[in-house]
């Protein structure tokens, strides 16, 4: 411990004494003169007091003063996070830098404006909500079924009770939109004469196609299969994603002007080189087609299948040859769970799922494995495969060993295993441990580079490949991932293509999407959450019944449910008070009273009363405010001639810009609550 040599040493005892006798008398007399000297020198120093108000200019932004509202429900509408495709990143970035990016939008890989969606749905403007979401997520209905919704984990409502069901709101918006789709969809004008070809009709390709079409390009899309949708069509089981949803949304896109050519395999039916000649830019969104199979002894035996092949057969043929047989899935990801649940539906008698990770670390989403276990899947965690056992080239079982740890200290994949092995009897082994791209026929006749591991050489940042004018996006670039991630890469690639075709630099002035870090929420004790604050509950089909067929497991929201759910949105960072009452709930003096009405079309904060006679200036309310609408003013010394003036009503709280009692200036009245909109065509 470094000891400061210059510091004053603490005396042995603080009770020092004067010397006795004359010496002490002189010490005393001297002390009086010292005192006079100190006061005399003090009178020459700078005073510590300041003149008010001339010198008190340093107003701290942390001051806790009286409170004001920046905006309120029904008075101020929020800014929808909406922009042309190529300017979207800059908009998000600006919001992020100003701390105005809501957690849901920030945490979404594609930055879908979930806050705006909730705002519009709660207001009854559902088609607008759908179109707002479609700006960034071309398949709201699809993602509304299958998205792993990182937005809901980031939702600030987690702090108080339960997150908004953003995914189900997507789904609800889609279902409502279907009713009006025909009249709302108009072909996008083709304002530019350049042509873009997109190879693959998966989520990333579709996202890029929509962006490019809305920028005025002519887009042609090639698909190998008979049905468009890529992995969504071939891989995702229909109990999760009914095919009419997927094809319906793609049909919308076609109606918007997409030239979709199915059953056209590039490299066989049409050569990539000729597509490159005919178009100004080509986007490869081919995805991953091959299942990886571990190089273990015995994998050549009959009954060892890859996950994609299995899923394709189960989805398209309705029979994967496992009826009445036992099945073991190797892998713990989402695909593995899909395989396991499909296997049950196509008649497997016993489905096991084994993975290296423990049940806490499984890479699939917890709700998925939960549903799968409900349906009868047996999860075997922390198990590593050793060898496929076979008899007469027919799989009979799998030898497994316990996995002790999956990752090493640095977080790299480096599993360690125990000694004792265990044999598991099974008839079919499905490997769901990852996928790889199949590019050989595609790239033949072009200069596209493929790495030694069979991967396309791509600059991950802007999607450029080794050939100018050819771009790539989706899982072929990122590796296996979520659908919304693919959508996000599609948007990036579209931006690159647009810049290239406009002749601009691909990187200059381009803003990378920020990855904001959101607060981690503690689990909320639901015992203390009132019923009307809880999130909408949707029913899941009975596990025993649903495991037998491919009907959708989850039901959607009703209109009432959806609007109530959307009304729960806190509109984070919008600086508009939504009347969420969390300031009133956290006020230690019970000085705040908040009420609102949720009448569609006339949602309004009806009451906001702050009783300053009770306020203790603790600042907890403003800290709790999710939207930032409740803010401190610099006024912490308020005085009035009448104590009634100490109660600030809603008008007073909102009047800060013109000057109010809260900000120390008396102001003008302001409009408080709008009349309900009852115009033709709009619901009251």
């Amino acid at each position, binding site marked *: 411990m470094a000891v400061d040599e210059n510091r004053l040493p603490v005396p042995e005892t603080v009770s020092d004494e004067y010397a006795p006798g004359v010496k002490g008398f002189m010490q005393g007399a001297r002390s*009086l003169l010292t*005192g*006079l000297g*100190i*006061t*005399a020198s*003090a*009178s*020459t*120093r*700078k*005073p*510590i*007091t300041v*003149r008010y108000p001339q010198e008190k200019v340093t107003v701290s932004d942390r001051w806790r003063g009286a409170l004001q509202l920046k905006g309120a429900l029904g008075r101020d509408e929020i800014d929808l996070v909406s922009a042309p495709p190529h300017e979207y990143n800059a908009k998000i970035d600006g919001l992020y830098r100003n701390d105005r990016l809501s957690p849901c939008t920030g945490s979404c890989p594609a930055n879908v404006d979930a806050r705006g969606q909730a705002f519009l749905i709660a207001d009854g403007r559902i088609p607008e909500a759908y179109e707002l979401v479609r700006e960034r997520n071309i398949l709201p209905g699809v993602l509304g079924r299958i998205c792993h919704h990182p937005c809901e984990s980031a939702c600030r409502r987690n702090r108080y009770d339960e997150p908004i069901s953003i995914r189900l709101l997507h789904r609800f918006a889609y279902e409502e939109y279907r009713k009006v789709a025909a009249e709302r969809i108009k072909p996008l004008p083709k304002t530019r004469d350049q042509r873009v070809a997109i190879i693959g009709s998966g989520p990333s390709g579709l996202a890029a196609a929509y962006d490019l079409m809305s920028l005025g390009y002519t887009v042609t899309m090639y698909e190998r299969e008979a049905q468009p949708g890529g992995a969504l069509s071939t891989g995702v089981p229909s109990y999760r994603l009914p095919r009419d949803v997927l094809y319906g949304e793609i049909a919308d896109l076609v109606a918007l002007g997409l030239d979709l050519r199915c059953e056209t395999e590039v490299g066989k039916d049409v050569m990539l080189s000729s597509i490159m000649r005919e178009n100004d830019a080509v986007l490869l969104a081919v995805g991953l087609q091959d299942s990886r199979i571990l190089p273990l002894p015995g994998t050549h035996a009959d009954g060892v299948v890859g996950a994609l092949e299995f899923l394709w057969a189960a989805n398209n043929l309705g029979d994967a040859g496992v009826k009445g047989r036992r099945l073991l899935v190797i892998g713990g990801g989402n695909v593995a769970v899909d395989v396991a649940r499909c296997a049950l539906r196509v008649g497997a008698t016993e489905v096991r799922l084994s993975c290296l990770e423990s049940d806490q670390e499984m890479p699939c989403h917890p709700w998925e494995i939960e549903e799968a276990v409900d349906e009868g899947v047996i999860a075997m965690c922390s198990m590593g495969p050793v060898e496929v056992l076979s008899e007469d080239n027919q799989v009979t079982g799998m030898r497994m060993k316990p996995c002790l740890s999956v990752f090493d200290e640095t977080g790299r994949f480096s599993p360690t295993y125990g000694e004792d092995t265990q044999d598991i009897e099974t008839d079919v082994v499905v490997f769901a441990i990852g996928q790889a791209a199949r590019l050989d026929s595609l790239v033949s006749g072009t200069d596209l580079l493929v790495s030694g591991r069979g991967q396309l050489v791509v600059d991950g940042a802007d999607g450029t490949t080794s050939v100018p004018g050819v771009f790539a996006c989706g899982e072929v670039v990122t590796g296996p991932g979520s659908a919304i991630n693919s959508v996000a890469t599609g948007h990036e690639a579209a931006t690159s293509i647009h810049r290239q075709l406009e002749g601009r630099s691909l990187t200059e002035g381009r803003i990378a999407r920020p990855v904001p870090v959101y607060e981690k929420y503690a689990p909320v004790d639901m015992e203390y959450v009132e019923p009307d604050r809880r999130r909408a509950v949707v029913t899941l089909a009975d596990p025993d019944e649903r495991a037998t067929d491919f009907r959708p497991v989850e039901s959607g929201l009703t209109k009432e449910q959806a609007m109530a759910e959307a009304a729960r949105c806190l509109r984070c960072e919008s600086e508009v008070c939504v009347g969420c009452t969390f300031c009133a709930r956290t006020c230690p003096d019970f000085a705040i009273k908040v009420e609102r009405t949720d009448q569609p079309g006339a949602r309004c904060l009806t009451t906001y009363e702050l009783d300053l006679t009770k306020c203790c200036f603790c600042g907890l309310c403003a800290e709790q405010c999710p939207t930032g609408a409740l803010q401190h003013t610099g006024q912490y010394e308020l005085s009035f001639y009448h104590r009634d003036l100490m109660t600030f009503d809603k008008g007073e709280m909102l009047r800060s810009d013109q000057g109010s009692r809260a900000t120390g200036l008396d102001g003008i009245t302001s409009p408080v609550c709008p009349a309900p909109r009852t115009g033709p065509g709009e619901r009251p």
Partner: protein
Amino acid sequence: MSFLWGMLWGVAAVMVIAGGAIVGVWWERKVSARIQLRLGPQQIGPAGSLQMVADVPKLLFKEDIIPAAADEPFFRYAPLAVFAPIAMSVAVIPFATGWAPFDATAGALFFLAVPSISVLGILFSAWASHNTLSAIGGVRAAAQMVSYEVPRSLSVLSVLVLAGTLRPVAVMDAWEWWWIPATFVGFIVYLISSIAEMNRGPFDIPEAESELVAGYFADYAGIRWAVFMMGEYGGMIAASLFGAAMFLGGFRLLPGAWGVVAFIAVGAVLMTIIMWMKWTFPRLRQDQLMTFCWTILTPIAIVQLFAAGVIAAWL
């Protein structure tokens, strides 16, 4: 005729003291503020100099509160009984050659004796307030003022011995410069005991605000309280001017009319020193105060008087 003249002089003395008190309060507020790292009055007038002028009407128009339990006649007039003797004492101070407002033959005796009457006023106010804290303050004040009368008178006496007269004007005529060193110890005793006599810090035990709130005038408000304050400042002015005249040569320091200026200036410096001490030193306790008076100040004053007597006899 002489009665009229007396009235006129009385009014003039009151005006001088009131004006002096206004300036004195402002000055004390500025001095104490600077000592205490503050700014003092700022808002009214240049450097807040009109603050006190504004305070006077405020004090005049404040409600004249008389506690229900108070002994009303005494409570009403006790402030005057405190103030009047102090105002009277100013009359005998010699301002210029051969001139004092009231050129009394036994003027020095007058100056020492008359202000002591104010102790009666203090006792009146203390008793009439019917308040335990006031009563304690009044008794403390009486004991203190009577005690400090002794060293104060003895120290002034040493100058009078050198001059051989009780008439202040005559003392000034006889003044020689070497009296300053010869009576310097007496001057210190005079200064200290004067502070005690006017109940100012560090001897403000009767009104000790930390224990007795304000002592004998705790229950006073408005103009009556202002009269007490005028008494305090009047006493300070009188003691400073008299000390400047007797011990420091007064108007004899400079020739002619400049002498009057010098006299007032020295008095102001003495006043500032009194303020300086008040804002520097802690307050003594009652028993320490008495011990200090009787075992230190009084013997020193006697020694000074003896020395002055020896010098006077030797001349």
